[in-house]
């Protein structure tokens, strides 16, 4: 099990969870672009958070579903996963 979430995996979750086709490398090159610009709404992000929590078997921080950008989200998730 990988202990870091990548842009590729995030893009895959956006596809399976919300039906959005997003270029992972584009997301990676502009991590500050809002999820909204990719068409991801608040429900979609909630679904991605739940999918990750189910995958890793542990909760993410309560504010994970309030992240506005992919960069912010990956930082938060990866800090949590690599934390103590």
């Amino acid at each position, binding site marked *: 099990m990988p202990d870091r979430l990548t842009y590729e995996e995030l893009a895959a979750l956006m596809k399976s969870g919300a039906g959005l086709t997003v270029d992972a490398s584009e997301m990676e090159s502009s991590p500050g672009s809002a999820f909204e610009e990719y068409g991801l709404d608040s*429900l979609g992000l909630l679904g991605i958070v739940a999918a990750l929590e189910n995958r890793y078997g542990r909760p993410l921080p309560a504010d994970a579903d309030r992240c506005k950008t992919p960069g912010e989200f990956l930082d938060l998730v990866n800090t949590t996963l690599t934390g103590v």
Partner: protein
Amino acid sequence: MTRRVAVTGVGVVAPGGIGAPAFWDMLANGRTATRGITLFDPAPFRSRIAAECDFDPVAHGLDDELIARSDRYIQFALVAAREALGDAGLDLEKEDPWRIGVSLGTAVGGTTRLEHDYVAVSGSGARWDVDHQPAGRHLERAFSPSTLASAVAEEVGAHGPVQTVSTGCTSGLDAIGYAFHSIEEGRVDVCVAGASDTPITPITVACFDAIKATSANNDDPEHASRPFDARRDGFVMGEGGAVLVLEELEHARARGATVLCEISGYATFGNAYHMTGLTSEGIEMAEAINTALAHSRIDPTGIDYVNAHGSGTKQNDRHETAAVKRALGTHAYKVPMSSIKSMVGHSLGAIGAIEIAACVLALKHQTVPPTANYETADPECDLDYVPRTARPLKLRSVLSVGSGFGGFQSAVALTRPGGRTP
């Protein structure tokens, strides 16, 4: 000549109070009916609290066959309809059944039985190709939401237009609104209108868990529904039903009925924004309020009380506060506005009808029900929310508003005789 619409009977099945008198007693005393879920084991869920009805269909006069045929939400509607018809003193023998309609709302309909039987036919979710053999009787009646209005129409003996309305959480307001239209337009003289929903089931609780719309204040359920309070953290699910008897005003007068009040205006619009999201401006709800008031011929300053949607989610209460300010202007700061969801929870499609029943009773008793649990002001919600204690007040015209998933924004105006702007 415009046909006016009178309310002549009320019936309620609500958490903490079955029957309109018990329901009003609860509201007038600011009691809350929210508690830990008992209808199923809520342990694996994020939100484990709800406002449940302690409902015994036998004690409320339903026979075995009717109980077997009717999902819980229909049982609620039947009991509420009987009470409303009795309250109205309507002698159905003397009425033309082709001039009686039924308009009832529900958001999730027969989910209770659908989920129960799903578990049986799928081996608890083990197979997609379900086996039909273990399915129970009357499952088709749970599948078809039109069963709601159909069952009540058979109870009443109505032969006029019969419809089930399902606009999410505004279903109750809209069902009464459509009934109002059908009387105003002359399609019927009497309409049995209201709503019922019993959404406290695992799938419905889980779907609101998934979007964190419900309160997770599981340790303090009695105080978990906190509309407009700064510490609110989501709505508390409820269940229930309410039914009104609506009549063309002259029809009611001709038979010497007591006119409790009139439904004087109704409007609904879509926000065309997001299935669950609400803007912070409240433009579309304000449009619904203003259109309903114009239809009623009531000035915004003529509104004496606003029964809020007040679900207790962060975004709803902010949205609604903005909408009421936009619609009523400076009068918004003078008019009391409360949410009975603080006491009876949010019963999705039913709550709009339960809230209209509360408005009818508020007009009758000249008392504004409170917002229970309201303690801490939120700078974004700065109106008079009638904290914790009911308030005696001269009420002529009141307003009930609602928002629903799908973007629905609805408003209903109710007026005492002589309450319209001259």
